[in-house]
């Protein structure tokens, strides 16, 4: 497993625990020390930079550098004002967009896991099928939008379908990696117990796939929000993406930025929810033990 955990777990480097091989005892020790000693600098420095950034933005520092007008890049205070004024609409649309993202992600992840199960149960043909699924991963979301719109109409289902396709691919690839990246010793042990295929899956492969599944879920949480918003850009009559592209068209930049702010907050919360779930379900895993 060393050095090549999930290919796609690029989201997880924030939590270095997830790369069990890369850190030795030394690193862990250092982490502990830094947790105690440098916690202030770890929070204060970025916080300070963030505040500085917003102040510079507010006093139009960026506007002078890049030669922008305030109607092109609205000030933070104006954006906050726009959020306050349109809070009802924004919250309403936020719920709609999140519902799309959530449903699509649930459906896509379930399908993806199923594909991974089948793919690792019948490796010879499954791998070929998986390659096709990976190809879906590279398809631009915007290309899917119009087709799903033709199939499922303007309603919520077309966005759910887009998100399903995107999230399915990520989950299939990751879960398949998790199911095939099992410890050979454990596999030998199960074989020595004369375990059959179903039992190998039940006791070893599925459990082993869990960390990878959560990595995929975290990627999917973000991807599903992107899919929902981009899907709404063109064909929706509701939702954050619709409001965003519409406000840009009528040159209401503050409202457009307000949509982005709200969407980002939803994205972060969605991500954090998945992360909490991961902590709850993976208590047994070494990366979560201290």
């Amino acid at each position: 497993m060393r050095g090549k955990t999930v290919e796609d777990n690029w989201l997880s480097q924030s939590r270095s625990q997830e790369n069990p091989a890369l850190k030795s005892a030394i690193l862990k020790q250092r982490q502990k020390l830094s947790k105690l000693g440098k916690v202030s600098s770890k929070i204060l420095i970025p916080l300070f930079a963030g505040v500085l950034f917003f102040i510079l933005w507010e006093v139009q520092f960026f506007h002078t550098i890049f030669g922008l007008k305030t109607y092109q890049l609205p000030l933070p205070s104006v954006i906050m004002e726009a959020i306050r004024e349109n809070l009802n609409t924004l919250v309403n649309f936020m719920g709609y967009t999140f519902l799309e993202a959530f449903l699509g992600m649930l459906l896509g992840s379930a399908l993806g896991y199923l594909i991974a199960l089948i793919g690792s149960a019948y490796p010879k043909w499954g791998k070929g099928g998986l390659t096709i699924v990976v190809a879906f991963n590279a398809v631009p979301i915007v290309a899917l939008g119009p087709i799903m719109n033709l199939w499922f109409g303007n309603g919520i289902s077309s966005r759910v379908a887009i998100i399903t396709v995107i999230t399915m691919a990520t989950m299939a690839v990751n879960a398949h990696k998790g199911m095939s990246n099992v410890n050979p010793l454990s596999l030998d042990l199960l074989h020595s117990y004369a375990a059959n295929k179903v039992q190998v899956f039940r006791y070893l492969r599925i459990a082993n796939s869990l960390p990878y599944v959560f990595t995929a879920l975290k990627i999917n949480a973000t991807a599903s929000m992107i899919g929902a918003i981009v899907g709404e850009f063109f064909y929706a009559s509701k939702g954050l993406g619709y409001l965003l592209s519409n406000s840009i068209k009528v040159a209401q930049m503050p409202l457009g930025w307000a949509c982005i702010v709200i969407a980002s907050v939803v994205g972060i919360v969605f991500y954090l929810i998945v992360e909490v779930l991961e902590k709850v379900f993976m208590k047994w895993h070494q990366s979560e033990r201290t």
Partner: protein
Amino acid sequence: MNLQGLLKRSAPTLVWLIGLLIIWQISSWFLLNVLQVPLAQSKLPYIHELVFTFTEYSGTLLYQASITMKSAIIGFAVGTFVGILLAIFMSSSKWIEQLAFPYLVASQMIPILGLAPIVYGIVRDDGVSRIIIAAFMTFFPVVLNTLRGLRSAEPSAVELMHSYAAKPWAVYWKLRFPQSLPSLFTGLKIAAPLSVTGAILVELMGATEGIGVIMLRNLYYGSSHAYMFWLTVIVGALLGFLSYLVISLVERLVTPWQPEFRKSGGDE
């Protein structure tokens, strides 16, 4: 890597692909003649019609695709360059890392593609905003992955370099940079299709040229242009897939020592 082995390995994929195409063709016929749904050919066109239309309009399609690809590639290159640079800065200075890292992680949780209309609104120039968006989409996965790679050098190897009194740039060039290549490529493989997506998205918002523009145009013309519309979608999808394949190929050439490329090894 002989030809026969390659054929043997890719046989299941080919069978799947052909199977899918057959299912496509049958369902298209089914929709058109049995169910007789309205707009059947817009929903799922015959493949042979698509091929006909493609041979007829291949010049236009390829030209527009090349325009899209060009801005995606420029953006991708800019994003990669800036991303690697920042990752090197971050790995060399604790201070910069602490400053930027939380924001990089947060950037993974927000829908960046949603910024496309805003960037377009600011720049109001489709060429530039295509490149900016493509660069933006590339930037974040590249920084995070490169940083992880630069950090993943084994402590004992670093100590060895120190004991040889190696200069910092030597440590980077000889140890950290090669070590970071696998995860850099992981990032690039994520970023390449994203940059194409970003470029197409900006085109859909209002550019004058590019595959996204004719996609939108043919969609509005209605069912008579269904084949052309489907072709633009397929070309867009192929561009994304192609970018992924190219990066994978480069990865194989640059880092042939990775376990998954060895004859035995990888995750089987």
